[in-house]
């Protein structure tokens, strides 16, 4: 067995039949998330056959392709609807959805909040790089006010969503946030999210060097990582800070952890032959 933290763990989960290299740019955060996700799955002891990994459209949409699970690359924003169908059809499967910020909070915003409200027993991992990467750097629903992008050349006129607060208000059972810089935290909260019964959300702040970095004059991966390091504030510490002090900061940690009835278990009560 490879030692804990060894890259061999990832190699055991990559698809040998898939043609590499992957599509992501140098400095992208999605590869770090892929590693964290695989480590969390491995740590929880799931078999490859019981994992279903689903994505929407965008840079994050390509993630499942590389991994040796049951994988599904769906339409833009609708990944959680497919996940809902799979989970209800076969509740024994562990269903994980990976989405981007545009995917989850813009075109898929309605699906996201309703899956949270119904408490569908799936884990949604939302890679928030604050921009549409694959289409060339347009403003997303999490792009900060004033940031210039390729579709907001005079500065973004809109305020961003706080995705974690959104899904908390919608009823998610578990909500946590980390950056890809804080990999130990990321590993831990993904592991907790997978373990949680109910709709669990992990918001992953990730750098898009190619586009967001360019528009915000942080043109290197190292610079963007440093920005994440300097601006992340653990939840316990954030409680002592004012709203003004928390502006543009990333509050990290487990934000919500509560028990609620899950849809498929409620449905089993009314179904004659559960499962």
């Amino acid at each position: 067995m490879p030692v804990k933290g060894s890259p061999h763990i990832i190699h055991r989960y990559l698809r040998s039949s898939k043609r590499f290299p992957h599509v992501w740019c140098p400095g992208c955060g999605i590869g770090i998330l892929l590693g964290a996700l695989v480590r969390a799955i491995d740590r929880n002891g799931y078999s490859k056959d019981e994992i279903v990994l689903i994505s929407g459209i965008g840079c994050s949409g390509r993630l499942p392709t590389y991994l040796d699970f049951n994988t599904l690359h769906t339409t833009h924003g609708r990944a959680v609807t497919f996940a809902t169908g799979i989970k209800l059809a076969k509740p024994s499967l562990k269903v994980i959805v990976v989405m981007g910020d545009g995917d989850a909070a813009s075109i898929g915003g309605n699906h996201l909040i309703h899956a949270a409200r119904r408490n569908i027993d799936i884990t949604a991992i939302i890679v928030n790089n604050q921009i549409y990467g694959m289409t060339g750097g347009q403003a997303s629903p999490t792009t900060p006010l004033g940031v210039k992008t390729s579709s907001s050349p005079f500065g973004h006129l809109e305020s961003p969503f706080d995705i974690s607060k959104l899904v908390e208000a919608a009823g998610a059972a578990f909500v946590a946030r980390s950056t890809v810089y804080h990999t130990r935290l990321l590993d831990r909260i993904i592991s907790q999210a997978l373990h949680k019964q109910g709709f669990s959300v992990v918001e992953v702040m990730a750098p898009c060097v190619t586009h967001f970095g360019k528009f915000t004059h942080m043109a290197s991966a190292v610079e963007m990582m440093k920005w994440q390091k300097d601006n992340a504030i653990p939840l316990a510490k954030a409680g002592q800070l004012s709203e003004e002090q928390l502006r543009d900061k990333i509050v990290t940690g487990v934000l919500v952890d509560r028990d609620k009835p899950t849809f498929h278990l409620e449905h089993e009560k009314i179904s004659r032959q559960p499962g």
Partner: protein
Amino acid sequence: MRRRQRNERLLLQGSEACVRGAIAAGCRFYAGYPITPATEIMELMSRRLPEAGGVFIQMEDEIASLGAVIGASLGGLKAMTATSGPGFSLMQEHISFAAMAEVPCVIVNVMRGGPSTGLPTLPAQGDVMQARWGAHGDHPIIVLAPSSAYEFFDLTVKGFNLSERYRIPVIVLADETVSHTRESVALPHDDEVELEDRPKPTVPPEWYAPYRDPGSGVPPMPAFGEGYRYHVTGLAHDIHGYPTTRSDETGELMLRLFNKVSKDFHLLQWFDSYFEEDARVTVIAYGSVARSALRAVRVARERGLPVGLLKLKVLWPFMRRTVMRFLSASDKVLVPEMNMGQLSREVKRVNQGECQVATLNKVDGRMITPVEILARLEEMCR
């Protein structure tokens, strides 16, 4: 559900017959969104499916409904949704996905007056072309059109079977009149219903390539969780399901998607014909209009007119072979439709010029009556 006596007649709405057909066909998952005039199907499913050990969920919209249906189908269940025009428009994105990823599913569209919100409570046949071409990109599709409660049962069963056999989305295109008319029907017992299931792989997982043509054009399809860990995507893909832009692979995929259905066009010639032997003027109709047409043709026959009826049960792929036979045997053809002329375009397309094709169109939310068709037939026979 009380066990029915053999040959017992039931008084059923079309929508109830559809639900019974779906459950008899093995449907165990329904996701939907309320919309007039298809809501009854969802309401009945919410009661019947849990009783049958299936899963019902009301989703946030029609896009989500078909997404969940496709997910459930990948999970191994036969799954369906039902809607009407505006919801059907929203579903087009996922009809396209199901066609590309080859996920069996059934979509019932109970047509109402359009465009837009239109006439929610009144019948129409305005979605004939949308059912064929509404989804983006070239794709295969099968569209069935019931004209009675019995046919709604029967074509829902057959719709599931075709969708499983070819791994494609099948649309059951009903109209408000067919769905809401309550009539006496004798339904077969569940054990008398012929069922088809999607082909399953017989090779071990390490040999399995999810999109390799086994010869029939329809690759075997395991459910997620059965040990075959494969990739499903709406992107153009190679035989392993992985995205590709290589022209040899993308071209082969598209041809296979079409050929798996087109090689069997001759098996999809489902119709009823009346007075075919000596008809000089033939009515070609589908859905509730075919009921009015049959009445008109029978009265015309009583009056000595040489008329006949061809009732189409499959709209797409268009029954070219059958329709051409009727066109060449008739002097004139009348195509009555509750739209501005959609299927009549196809009839004209396959007409080799030997037959005169007339249309009778009505788009005011009222049914085309037997009297209206009869008047046209008398005129055409003059």
